[in-house]
C-alpha cells in the first residue's frame, strides 16, 4: 500500500517545472500567431494606404477647387438654397401629407394582411371543391364556402387597391412640393460626381475621415486571429483559370499575387510613386481594364514570369537586370535567387520575350522593338539554319548560294574570307569559325589552316561554271556611283562602311539585307559584277537580289564603280601552303569514327591529295554546318547540326552545362545564353585567376563548333530576348490574338515583306523607308544641302509610302505592276525592282495583306463610271483648271508646266490604278494620308459667296457649290476621265537629260515669296 504522501520526486519542484514549461509554451504559442501575423507584404500595404490617402486628399482638393471655380456649380448652389427655402415655406403642407401617408400605409398593411389570409383560405376551398367534384366530400358545402371566400377575397383586394391609390396620390403631392429641391440636388451631384466618388473613397480608407464605429471596425478587422474574417490588409490575387503553370504532372491555374505589394500597378496616378507602388508604365496596353491585356484575364507572371504565388520579394523570384542591381537588392532587400524555381522573373531587359508566346506570327514591333530586332537578327544571322526554330521553316538560307562560286571569286579570296570574314568586311553576318578561343593555339591553327584549304577545295571542285557576257565597255565609275546612290541599291546595301552607330534598330538592319558593297576589287571581277547585276537570277536562282532592269551601260558603270575599291592589306595576307601530313591526320580522325585503324590507313594510301582535300572538305562542311546558310551541292537534305531552339526558353536550367563558368556568371538561363553568343566556344575553356583560359581535353572533332558572330551587347540582348521567348507554354486560344482572315493575311504579308525587305525602301504604317537618309545625301550631292534638308522634297524623291495602299490601288493593276513595274512618279530615280523570284501566290498574299490591313475586304469591284457631259464632270474640269493640276501632273503625253522637281504621277493612270473612293479621301486631305507630301489639297470654293463663284468658276461649279463633297467628286470624275498614253518614261528621260530637275539652288537669303 502506498500512502498519499509518498513521493520520489519533489512535487513542488515538478510544479515549478510545469509552470515554467507551460509559460514557455504559452509564449511560443503566441509567437506562432505573431509569426503568422507578421507578413512582409503588410508593411507595403500600410505604406500604400498612406500614399493613397494622401493622393485622394490631393485629388479632392483639386476637384473642389475646380468646382469652386465652376460657374455652373455656384449657380446650382444658389438654386439649391432657393429650393430649400421653398420647401421650408411649405413645411406645413408637407407635414400634413406625410401624416396622411403614414396613416394610409398602416391601414394598407392591415388590409393586405387580411387579404393574404383570405387568399390562403380560398386556395384551400378551391382544393376542397375540386376534391368534391371528384367524389370526395360534400360538394354542396364546398361550393358554398368557395363562393363566400371568392367574394371576400375580391372585396379585400379591391379595398387594398383603393388605399394604394390614395397613398400614391399623397406621395405625388409630396414629390411635387419637393421637386425643385430634388432637381437641384441631382444637378449638383452630377456636376460634383468625381469629387463625391473621391469623398466616398477617402471615407473608406482614411481613418481620420471615418465615423467612430468605423474607426473601431478599422482597427478590429486587422487584429491578429480576428483578421481572418474581413481584413483590410490582405493578400490580393488574381486567378486565371485558363492560363496554367506547368507543374509537370498537371497544369495549375495561374495565381498571381504580385498586386499584394505592387498595389498601384493598375491604378493611374501613381506613375511617380516609388516602387513597389508605381503604376504600370504602359497601362493602356497592359493591365488596364480596357486594354488588350486586362489584369484579371492575363495576370502578371504570364508575361513577366516569376513565382506568382510568392508574397515576398524573394519568394516571388525577382531577377535583377545587372550585377549592380543585384548587389543593391542583396544589401537593401536581402535578395537571393530562388534556387528551385525554374521560371524566375524575366529581367526587365528581356521582358519583351514573352510577347513571342502569343504574337509569334506577327511581332508587334512598336510594343516590342527589342524582340523585333532579335527576330531580325535570328533571320539575318541564320540561327535557324543550324538550330531548328518553329516558324522559320520556310525562311530561305541567309547566305549566298555557292554552286557557281569559282566564277565569282578565286581560291585565295575564299580561303582568307572563310578564315576571318570580318577582317575583310567589318560587319559581315558570316561568322568566325577559326581563330577562336578553343582553336587559336599553334597546334589547332596548324590544323585549321588545312581545314580551310579542304573546304575551299571542295567548294571549287563542286562549283559549276557560269557563262558570262562580255562588258560593252569599261564603264564610267563616277556615273556608277551616282546610279548606286539613286536607283535604290541602298535600300538593301551599305556602301560606306559600318553605319550602325551606337543604336541598332531593325531599320538599320534592313540596309544589311544584302552585303556591304565595299572592297569588291579585292573580291571578284568587274565582269562577274556586270553579269550579276544585269540578271541575278541567272547566277543563282535562289538569290533574294531582284533585277533592277539595268541597261548594259548602267550595269557597266556600276560594275566599274564597285570594282574600283579594294583592300590592299587584305590582298597581301598570305595563304599557307597545303600540308599533306596535317591533312592526313584530319582525314584519319574523320575516317576513324567509322573505320578501324588499318582500314583508315588503306583508305588514305589509296587517295591522292585532291581526293583527300575533297573528302576532308565535304566532311568539314558537314561538321561546321556551312550548308545551314549556303546552298552547297551535296548538302540539299543535310539535317541541322545545332540544338533545336524551339522550346529553349523552357529548357531546364540543369540541362545547360555551365562547366567551369559556374561561379563566373549568375546561374540563369539568360546569362548562359548571353555568354554563349558572346563567346560560343567558351564552355570548352577553364578560366584562370589571371583572366586567361586553359582548354579542356577534347579531340578537335569534339570541340564546340558554334561560330562567333561578333555581336555587340545590344544585339546579344535582343537575341537572348528571342531565346527566352521560345517557350513551350500552352496558350489557350482565348488568350491568343483571334486568327481572323485579316490577322492571317497580315501575318503572311509581314513575313513576305521581311523576306524581300520591302521596308528597306517603303514605309508602311510609320515603319521602314530605311533608304531615306541615303536619298537625302544623294540630293545634297546633285543639288545642295538645303534641298537635302527639305523633308518633303526628300520624301518626294523617296520610294512611295504604302499606307492606305489597300484602299488606294486597284488589285488588278497592282498585280500587273508587281510583275512588270512601270513609271508612276516621273521624278523618281529610285526604281521598283523586278522581283522575278516572287510567285503569283506570294504576290496575291501581298495584295491581300494590303487590302485587309486597310479594311478593303473585297478584291473585285464594279468599275467607277463617269458621264462626260454631266454638270459634275464639267465642274470638275473647272476645278482642275483653277487648281492648275497640270503644273505638276502629266496628262497622258502632255508634260507638266513646272520643272521636273515637282512632277507627280501621270493622271492618265488614275482610272486603271486608283480606287475611286480613295481618290476622294486623297483630295480631301492629302497630308492625312501621306504626311509631308508635296500634293496640296485642291481648292474647293464652297465657302465663297455663290455669286462670286458663279462669276469666276462658272455655272456648273455654282450648281454644286453648297456641297463640298460633290465638288470633290466632280474633280475626281474629271481626273477619272483623263486619258492618253500612260508610259511617259521616254519623255521624262529626254527632259531630264536636257533640262535636269530644276533644283532651286539657294545662293542667297531668298525669301519664300520669291519662289
Amino acid at each position, binding site marked *: 500500500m*502506498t500512502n498519499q504522501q*509518498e*513521493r*520520489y*520526486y519533489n*512535487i513542488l519542484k*515538478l510544479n515549478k*517545472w*510545469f509552470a515554467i*514549461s*507551460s509559460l*514557455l*509554451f504559452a509564449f*511560443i*504559442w503566441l*509567437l*506562432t500567431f505573431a*509569426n503568422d501575423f507578421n507578413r512582409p507584404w503588410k508593411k507595403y500595404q500600410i505604406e500604400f494606404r498612406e500614399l493613397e490617402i494622401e493622393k485622394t486628399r490631393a485629388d479632392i482638393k483639386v476637384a473642389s477647387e475646380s468646382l469652386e471655380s465652376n460657374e455652373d456649380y455656384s449657380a446650382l448652389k444658389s438654386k439649391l438654397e432657393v429650393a430649400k427655402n421653398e420647401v421650408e415655406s411649405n413645411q406645413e403642407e408637407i407635414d400634413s401629407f406625410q401624416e396622411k401617408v403614414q396613416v394610409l400605409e398602416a391601414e394598407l398593411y392591415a388590409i393586405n394582411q387580411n387579404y393574404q389570409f383570405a387568399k390562403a383560405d380560398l386556395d384551400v376551398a378551391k382544393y376542397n371543391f375540386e376534391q368534391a367534384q371528384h367524389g370526395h366530400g360534400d360538394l354542396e358545402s364546398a361550393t358554398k364556402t368557395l363562393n363566400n371566400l371568392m367574394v371576400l377575397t375580391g372585396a379585400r383586394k379591391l379595398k387594398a387597391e383603393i388605399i394604394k391609390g390614395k397613398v400614391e396620390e399623397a406621395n405625388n403631392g409630396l414629390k411635387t412640393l419637393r421637386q425643385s429641391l430634388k432637381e437641384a440636388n441631382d444637378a449638383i451631384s452630377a456636376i460634383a460626381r468625381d469629387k463625391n466618388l473621391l469623398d466616398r473613397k477617402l471615407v473608406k480608407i482614411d481613418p481620420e475621415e471615418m465615423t467612430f464605429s468605423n474607426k473601431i471596425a478599422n482597427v478590429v478587422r486587422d487584429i491578429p486571429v480576428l483578421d481572418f474574417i474581413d481584413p483590410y490588409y490582405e493578400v490580393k490575387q488574381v486567378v486565371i483559370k485558363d492560363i496554367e503553370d506547368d*507543374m*509537370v*504532372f498537371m497544369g495549375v491555374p495561374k495565381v498571381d499575387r504580385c498586386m499584394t505589394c505592387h498595389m498601384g500597378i493598375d491604378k493611374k496616378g501613381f506613375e511617380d510613386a516609388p516602387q513597389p507602388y508605381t503604376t504600370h508604365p504602359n497601362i493602356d496596353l497592359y493591365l488596364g481594364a480596357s486594354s488588350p491585356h486586362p489584369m484579371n484575364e492575363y495576370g502578371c507572371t504570364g508575361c513577366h514570369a516569376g513565382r506568382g504565388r510568392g508574397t515576398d520579394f524573394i*519568394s516571388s523570384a525577382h531577377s535583377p537586370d545587372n550585377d549592380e542591381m543585384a548587389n543593391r537588392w542583396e544589401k537593401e532587400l536581402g535578395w537571393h535567387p*530562388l534556387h*528551385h*524555381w*525554374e521560371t524566375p522573373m524575366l529581367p526587365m531587359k528581356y521582358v519583351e520575350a514573352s510577347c513571342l508566346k502569343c504574337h509569334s506570327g506577327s511581332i508587334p514591333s512598336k510594343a516590342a522593338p527589342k524582340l523585333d530586332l532579335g527576330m531580325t537578327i535570328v533571320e539575318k544571322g541564320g540561327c535557324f539554319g543550324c538550330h531548328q526554330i518553329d516558324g522559320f521553316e520556310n525562311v530561305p538560307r541567309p547566305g549566298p548560294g555557292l554552286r557557281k562560286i569559282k566564277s565569282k571569286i578565286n581560291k585565295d579570296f575564299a580561303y582568307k574570307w572563310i578564315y576571318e570574314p570580318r577582317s575583310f568586311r567589318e560587319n559581315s553576318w558570316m561568322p568566325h569559325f577559326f581563330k577562336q578561343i578553343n582553336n587559336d593555339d599553334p597546334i589547332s591553327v596548324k590544323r585549321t589552316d588545312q581545314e580551310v584549304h579542304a573546304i575551299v577545295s571542295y567548294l571549287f571542285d563542286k562549283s559549276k561554271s557560269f557563262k558570262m557576257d562580255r562588258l560593252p565597255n569599261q564603264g564610267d565609275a563616277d556615273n556608277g556611283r551616282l546610279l548606286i546612290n539613286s536607283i535604290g541599291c541602298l535600300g538593301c546595301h551599305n556602301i560606306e562602311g559600318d553605319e550602325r552607330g551606337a543604336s541598332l534598330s531593325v531599320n538599320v538592319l534592313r540596309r544589311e539585307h544584302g552585303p556591304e558593297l565595299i572592297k569588291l576589287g579585292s573580291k571578284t571581277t568587274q565582269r562577274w559584277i556586270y553579269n550579276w547585276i544585269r540578271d541575278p537570277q541567272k547566277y543563282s536562282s535562289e538569290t533574294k537580289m531582284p533585277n533592277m532592269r539595268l541597261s548594259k551601260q548602267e550595269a557597266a558603270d556600276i560594275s566599274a564603280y564597285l570594282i574600283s575599291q579594294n583592300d590592299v592589306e587584305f590582298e597581301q595576307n598570305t595563304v599557307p601552303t597545303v600540308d599533306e601530313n596535317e591533312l592526313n591526320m584530319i582525314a584519319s580522325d574523320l575516317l576513324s569514327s567509322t573505320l578501324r585503324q588499318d582500314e583508315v590507313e588503306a583508305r588514305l594510301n589509296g587517295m591522292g591529295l585532291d581526293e583527300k582535300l575533297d573528302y576532308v572538305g565535304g566532311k568539314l562542311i558537314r561538321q561546321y554546318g556551312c550548308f545551314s546558310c549556303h546552298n552547297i551541292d551535296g548538302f540539299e537534305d543535310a539535317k541541322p547540326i545545332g540544338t533545336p531552339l524551339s522550346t529553349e526558353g523552357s529548357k*531546364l536550367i*540543369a540541362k545547360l552545362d555551365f*562547366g567551369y563558368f559556374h561561379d563566373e556568371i549568375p546561374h540563369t538561363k539568360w546569362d548562359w545564353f548571353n555568354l554563349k553568343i558572346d563567346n560560343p566556344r567558351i564552355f570548352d575553356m577553364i578560366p584562370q585567376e589571371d583572366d586567361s583560359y586553359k582548354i579542356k581535353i577534347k579531340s578537335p572533332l569534339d570541340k564546340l563548333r558554334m561560330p562567333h558572330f561578333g555581336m555587340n551587347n545590344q544585339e546579344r540582348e535582343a537575341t537572348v530576348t528571342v531565346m527566352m521567348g521560345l517557350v513551350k507554354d500552352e496558350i489557350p486560344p482565348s488568350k491568343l490574338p483571334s486568327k481572323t482572315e485579316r490577322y492571317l493575311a497580315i501575318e503572311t504579308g509581314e513575313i513576305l515583306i521581311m523576306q524581300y525587305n520591302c521596308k528597306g525602301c517603303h514605309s508602311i504604317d510609320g515603319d521602314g523607308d530605311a533608304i531615306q537618309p541615303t536619298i537625302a545625301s544623294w540630293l545634297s550631292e546633285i543639288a545642295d544641302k538645303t534641298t537635302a534638308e527639305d523633308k518633303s522634297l526628300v520624301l518626294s524623291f523617296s520610294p512611295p509610302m504604302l499606307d492606305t495602299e489597300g484602299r488606294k490601288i486597284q488589285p488588278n493593276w497592282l498585280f500587273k505592276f508587281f510583275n512588270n513595274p512601270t513609271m508612276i512618279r516621273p521624278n523618281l530615280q529610285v526604281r521598283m525592282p523586278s522581283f522575278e523570284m516572287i510567285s503569283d501566290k506570294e504576290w496575291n498574299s501581298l495584295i491581300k495583306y494590303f487590302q485587309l490591313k486597310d479594311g478593303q475586304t473585297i478584291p473585285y469591284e464594279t468599275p467607277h463610271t463617269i458621264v462626260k457631259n454631266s454638270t459634275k464632270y464639267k465642274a470638275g474640269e473647272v476645278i482642275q483648271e483653277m487648281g492648275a493640276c497640270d503644273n505638276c501632273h502629266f496628262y497622258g503625253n502632255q508634260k507638266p508646266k513646272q520643272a521636273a522637281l515637282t512632277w507627280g504621277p501621270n493622271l492618265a493612270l488614275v482610272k486603271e490604278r486608283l480606287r475611286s473612293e480613295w481618290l476622294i479621301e486623297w483630295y480631301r486631305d492629302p497630308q492625312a494620308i501621306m504626311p509631308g507630301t508635296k500634293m496640296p489639297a485642291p481648292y474647293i470654293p464652297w465657302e465663297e459667296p455663290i455669286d462670286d463663284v458663279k462669276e469666276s468658276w462658272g455655272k456648273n461649279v455654282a450648281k454644286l457649290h453648297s456641297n463640298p463633297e460633290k465638288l470633290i467628286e466632280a474633280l475626281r470624275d474629271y481626273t477619272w476621265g483623263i486619258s492618253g498614253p500612260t508610259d511617259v518614261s521616254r519623255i521624262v528621260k529626254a527632259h531630264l537629260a536636257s533640262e535636269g530637275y530644276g533644283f532651286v539652288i539657294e545662293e542667297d537669303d531668298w525669301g519664300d515669296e520669291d519662289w
Partner: protein
Amino acid sequence: MMEAFKHLIDTLSKPTILVSFTFIIFFFVFPPTDWFDKWHRRLKFDGLWSVKSFWIITALLVGFFVFGLGDSDFRSIMLKPDNVPIAGLIFLVFFFTWLSMNQAYNNDKLVEAGQPVDEQYDAPNDKILVWPDLVYIELITIILFSAFMLVWSIGLPAPLEEPANPSESPNPAKAPWYFLGLQEMLVYFDPWMAGVVLPSLIIVGLMAIPYLDNVKEGSGYYSFKDRKLSIAIFMFGWLVLWNLLIVIGTVLRGPNWNFFGPFEYWDSHKIEALTNINLSEFIYVKWMSSGLPGNILIREIWGMVLVLGYFMILPPLLAKTWLKNLFDRLGVARYSLFIVLILAALTLPIKMYLRWMFNLKYIISIPEYFFNF
C-alpha cells in the same frame, strides 16, 4: 593552414579511411573481449566516459561545426533544412552513448566496491509511482517538446524545392535520412539483398536479442563489465552500420552518389572510375584467361562455394576454435542463429572492402535470374 586542415578532413573522410579507422578504433572503444579490454584500459579509452571527456568531446564537436560553418560548401550541406536533424543526431547519439556508458562504468565501480547500483532505489518493493510522478514528468516533457517543435517549425520552415519532374530527378536523389543506411548498402549489394533480405535480418536480429542474450550478470541496470560482447556487437550494428552510414549518406554522398569530403564542392561533373567486375570474371577472365563459361552453374560455382562455406563451414569451425566458450554457453540452436546473424551483418564491411580493394561487384552474379550476391 585552414585550407590544409579542411583538406586533411576531406582526405580522412574518404570512405576507405573513415570506415577502416572506425572499424579499428571501435573495438578498442567498445572492447568485446578481455584482450581488447586490456588495451582499452591501457589506451585510456575508459576515460572517454568521464564527465570531463564529455565536455571536451562536445566542445570539439561544437568547435568543428563552428569552424566548418565558415566554409561555404560545408554550410550549404549542413544547413539544408533536411540535414539539420542529422547534425542534431550526431550530438544526440554521442550524448546518449556517453550517458549510458558513463552510468555503466559508475555501476561497474559500485558493484566492484560492493555497493548497490544507481538504479536500485530504496523504494519498497522496487516500485515507483506512475501517478503522479511519471505522468507529471511526461506531461512536462510533452509541453517542452511541443514548444521546441513550434520554435523549430518557425525558425526552420519546410523548404520549397522544385516541382517533382520524372524527366529531371534530383541529383543526388536521397532517401529519407533514416533510410540512408539502407541506401548506402545499395552501393554494395543487389537491391533485393540491400532492400529486402538485410533489412529483414535486422528486424529478426533485433527480435532475437532477448533470446540470444542469456547472460544474467549486469542485467537490469547499466553495466559494461559483464556484458562486453553484447554491447560491442550491438554498438557496432547501431553506431557503425547504422548511424555512421546515415551520416555518410547525408554529408558525404553528393551528386551521382559520389563521395565528397565535407569541405568539398558538390561538382555534379566529378568523375570516379567505377568499373567493377564479378568474382566469376576474376577467376575465368583474369586468372584463367579462358572467357566465361556458358553454363551458369559452372560460371558461378566458385562464388556459391565461397558463400556456402562462409555460412555453413565457418560457424562450426568457429565453434570449435575461437568461439568455443560462446558455443558452450549458448548451445547449438542459439549459437547457430547468433552466428548466422553476425556473419550476415559482417557481409556489409566485407563487401565494402572487396569493392574498394578489388573492384569486386558480386560474388555470385546470375543476372539471368535476378540473383546477385
